[in-house]
């Protein structure tokens, strides 16, 4: 069994996402910064009247000071109700991957659940990492200190430090219920 993937380059490495998760590939438009968002969140942009959160995959995958170009490719992905654009360096194209060709990587970091890729596949002389959208799009993309429940007005002297790339997973407990 083979599955189709879209491959793209980010910070000198090649990554791929299942084609079924791809909505479209577009170009980076004018983004609007979102306060309290994590460092890898570039902001939101207008995609034909819809508001699209844009993540800088280069920052997310560890590139430092990525060059900024207004027309960078943005891969728009969908996972459940989450739709987001990911800024990449270059889109390489579609590849077909046999499911038994995927080598599950030994976790490099200390938390395998947080690893942004879920395996590696060799296509010819290319070594492609399969991006784990669960990790990239899981949870909220807000900084830990930006807890919306902490809404005490008198303390709004902005405690926000420099942008961290630390990832946040806010639980979304809804305390507005009766």
């Amino acid at each position, binding site marked *: 069994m083979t599955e189709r993937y879209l491959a793209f380059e980010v910070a000198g490495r090649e990554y791929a996402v299942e084609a079924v998760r791809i909505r479209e590939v577009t170009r980076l438009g004018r983004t609007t910064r979102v306060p309290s968002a994590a460092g890898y969140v570039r902001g939101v942009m207008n995609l034909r009247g819809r508001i699209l959160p844009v993540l800088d995959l280069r920052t997310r995958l560890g590139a430092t000071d990525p060059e900024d170009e207004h027309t960078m490719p943005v891969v728009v992905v969908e996972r459940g109700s989450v739709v987001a654009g990911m800024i990449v360096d270059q889109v390489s194209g579609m590849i077909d991957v046999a499911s038994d060709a995927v080598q599950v990587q030994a976790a490099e970091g200390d938390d395998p659940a947080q690893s942004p890729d879920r395996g590696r596949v060799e296509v010819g002389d290319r070594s492609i990492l399969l991006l784990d959208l669960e990790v990239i799009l899981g949870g*909220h993309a807000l900084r830990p200190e930006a807890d919306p429940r902490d809404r005490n007005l008198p303390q*709004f002297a902005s405690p926000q430090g420099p942008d961290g790339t630390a990832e946040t997973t806010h639980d979304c407990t809804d305390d507005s219920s009766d």
Partner: protein
Amino acid sequence: MMEATAHVPDSAERLHQATFLLVQLESGGSSDAGPLATLLQELATDDAFPAPVAQLLRAAADRFASALARDEGDFGSALPEVGRLVEEAADVLEDGVEESPTTDASSADPEMLETFLLESLDFLAEGERAALALDADPSHPEAVNTLFRCFHTLKGTAGFLDLPHVVTLGHRAESLLSLIRDVDRDPEPGEIDLIFRSVDTLTRMVSAIGAADGGDDVAWRDLADQLTRATADGAGARPDDRTPGVHPAPAAPSAPSVDDAQQAASTSGWTRVRTDQLDRVIDALGELTVAQSILAQDPAITGAVHSELAQKAWSATRIVSDLQKLALSMRTVPLAGLFRKMARLVRELSRARDATIHFEVEGEHTEIDRNMVDLLSDPLVHMIRNAVDHGIEAAEDRGAAGKPEAGTLRLRAMNAGGEVVLELSDDGRGIDRGRVRQRAVERGLIEADVELSDADLFQLIFVPGFSTTDEVTDLSGRGVGMDVVRSNVESLHGQVEVRSEPGAGSAFTIRVPLTLAISNVLVARVGDERFVVPSRDVVLSYRPDAAGLGSSDGAEFALVQEEPVPIVRLHSLLGVPGAETDPTAGVLVVVGTGRRRRALLVDDLLGQMQVVSKPLGPLLDETPWIAGGAVMGDGAVALILDVPALLATAAPELAELDPALRVGQ
């Protein structure tokens, strides 16, 4: 349909024989009541029958036996009733005992099913209106007929589509109404309850047919059995010997009536449109509107040498705007459905409290975006519970106060200035200012000596956890509710106000926009960023001078109409670099009402516009202080400030607002 008689062949055969004997007696072919009486006694004690059948047969046997006991020669008058019960028993036996799957899974054409679904829900809504009319006035001339038709038609169509459970329940409900109609008496309160439950259960069952998972049909059998029992019991109840029921209030002049329903139904020329498709049309038109305005603002057009181009763009803009208004009006629905739901709630609550409450409605034809209707339900439910539970006094207290024993609850709706206004008023005890004040002081919300207007004082009841009621009842819980009302209404971009007169009652007024699809906003610049503030939240905006500013304990205030209003520095709250930090060089945008006000510091105002408010999506929707985004004329996104969040205040806020803290004097 499976032949259920196979389970109890012998007994079923004897049941048929009873029918045969009945026909003979009725037609005069025989005058000997003995064989039927004996057979009925045997059938009544035959434990091969399922319980509901046995119950009907017992009723039939009893009825016949007592007729014979009165006068052995004149049992004829009992025959129609006995006949009905026996027939009903046969029906129940036939369609009730088979081991069928738990849900009706029709094999009919999906399109036909969908038509059935839509039509049936209409019938059932009409049935509900009739049931409410019947509840208000049990001798309502038309309501019983309307209900009968509703169940009858539903049963017929469901039979055609092979939905046996709907058929069975529809049939039982129809039988009960047929009995009431034929005996020509008013329905008992218990029977009206069963009618309501039948409408509800059938609505659930019919809706479940449309649902992907098929739904479940919990408790419909139980209800069917209860209907059967009621029909059996009701057969004997004559207009003269029924127990006088505690009937709810007579019909208020404005109570939803069957006539209204018929009037509404007679309007011709409707087309059904799926709501999700309509939603998509409206979304797409919203996007078209914005795209069109981006186009119209393009320098190539605005600076066009060829003024013809600008002219063309302008006329296209106008068409798009008309189209959007038209599409939005297609999505509006009258509030009547919501009002019916509230009438049901009042009915149930007054039952539970054993009180009589007149429920009057007005303006139920007021229209509103259908997407708003469901969201209005929760706050109304809370307000009604509160009014029934705390507002309207017990009958004896009302009598002592010289009021009519029956309380009155009035729900009114009207259009006013592009908004829908809903008002719920009661003639109860009113809000006790003293207790609200005392409670607010206890909870540290206000200082003991602070002076508050009624409007400001009553706003305190919306603070989470605020309650003046010492007792806890099962009706409205403990102190939760009013804060939910406010947060629900605010999520609809609305406001809620309270008026109250001690001893005379209270009135809650909710104002919400007609639609959430488009809103007017004020565009503000903070540093190099734009933010939009919904115009409805803005009281005023101005360039302050130094004399109108002050601070206390590090908290900054602006004096607005001689009241201190806390300043919110948006640049620091939202982390905007390079913004104006000196209020006298910027603009203050005052938002909120009464004592809940904030002065937002921005660099400048860029103007007003209409936008389509959009969510940021699950990844970012918890961004503090931000309610969503909107695409601006230049095609970029601006974030919409979450004004209720900016106003959502911790308890010390009201103390902060104490005029004693004023620093300008």
